[in-house]
């Protein structure tokens, strides 16, 4: 599993800026992120690579064309939660099952 996608899926509902591969940017509210990092945004200000801005009601960008996702500040706490979720997935299915490779502190 691509753990970074879990991180992005925590952005649902947040206004986020996505830099695209062709140097255009899209700022809008994340309505969906799927396992392939395809992202769906609503109420988007889209700035094309020439710098021209326009408004798009909805935008879908393929994961391949996402270069950066600017994680908004208010999502910090969720990042930690997402990391915990990643650790659970990593140790196949249960926090207390399986081997413990690193000493773990209770969260």
């Amino acid at each position, binding site marked *: 599993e691509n753990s970074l996608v879990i991180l992005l899926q925590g952005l649902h509902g947040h206004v986020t800026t996505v830099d695209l591969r062709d140097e255009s940017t899209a700022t809008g509210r994340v309505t969906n992120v799927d396992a392939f990092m395809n992202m769906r945004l609503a109420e988007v200000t889209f700035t094309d690579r020439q710098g*021209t801005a*326009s408004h*798009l009601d909805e935008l879908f960008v393929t994961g*391949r064309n996402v270069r950066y996702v600017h994680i908004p500040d208010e999502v910090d706490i969720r990042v930690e939660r997402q990391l915990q979720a990643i650790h659970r997935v990593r140790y196949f299915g249960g926090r207390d099952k399986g081997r413990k490779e690193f000493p773990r502190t209770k969260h």
Partner: protein
Amino acid sequence: MVEEGGGGGAMSFLKRFPPPAEGVRHQQPDTEAVLAGRTLGAGTLYIAESRLSWLENSGVGFSLDYPTISLHAVSRDLNAYPWEHLYVMVNAKFEEEETKEAPMAEGEEEEEDSDDDVEPIAEFRFVPSDKSALEAMFSAMCECQALHPDPDDEDSDNDYEGEEYDVEAHELEQGDIPTFYTYEEGLSHLTAEGQATLERLEGMLAQSVSSQYNMAGVRTEDSIREFEDGMEVDIAPVVAGQFEDAEVDH
């Protein structure tokens, strides 16, 4: 709607083909197609699972493969473009013989050409006469795009399989990787650390086979007897962090 393109030498990438019959998630008649600001005419947009197609009413048109589509969007910003439309950005070049001679209003074409060496981009706009259909068109495209995941994406997933457990367990299951010995041959080749690794991995295998023996990486006496074929070794509890740097790059 102005119909000036659509045939002959104006847009050479237009071809005649039958409309898609299978997997059509959405079909929108009376839709104008525009490429980089030049209209291709009025026709029907077919959003099918295999590809996106547009056929002018005369029967010629073109198709776009989803892997080449970078993004699509609903645009209702009349300042940016005078009609509400479905915007589709494609990572490919389309011949536009006429436009090379005719000057483009904003000079965008020429800038795009210079970028084409690095990354070709073509901008399509599909303008339905029925504006209220844009949401359905957008959603149908999202669904179809999701059916065509990028092969590059899967490679990066494999890179992230650097989680030691997954890769090694997978390799052990395969059993035919030359660097792994069978029990009998391999035992004598193992260093003490290697032996501990082997025990740990076998313990993990045991755990995946039977969940009753999951004790945080420490195998019990019982699990040894169940799953090991005559290999008698000391049971060494796994030391946390012992193998942190033991894993090589995969």
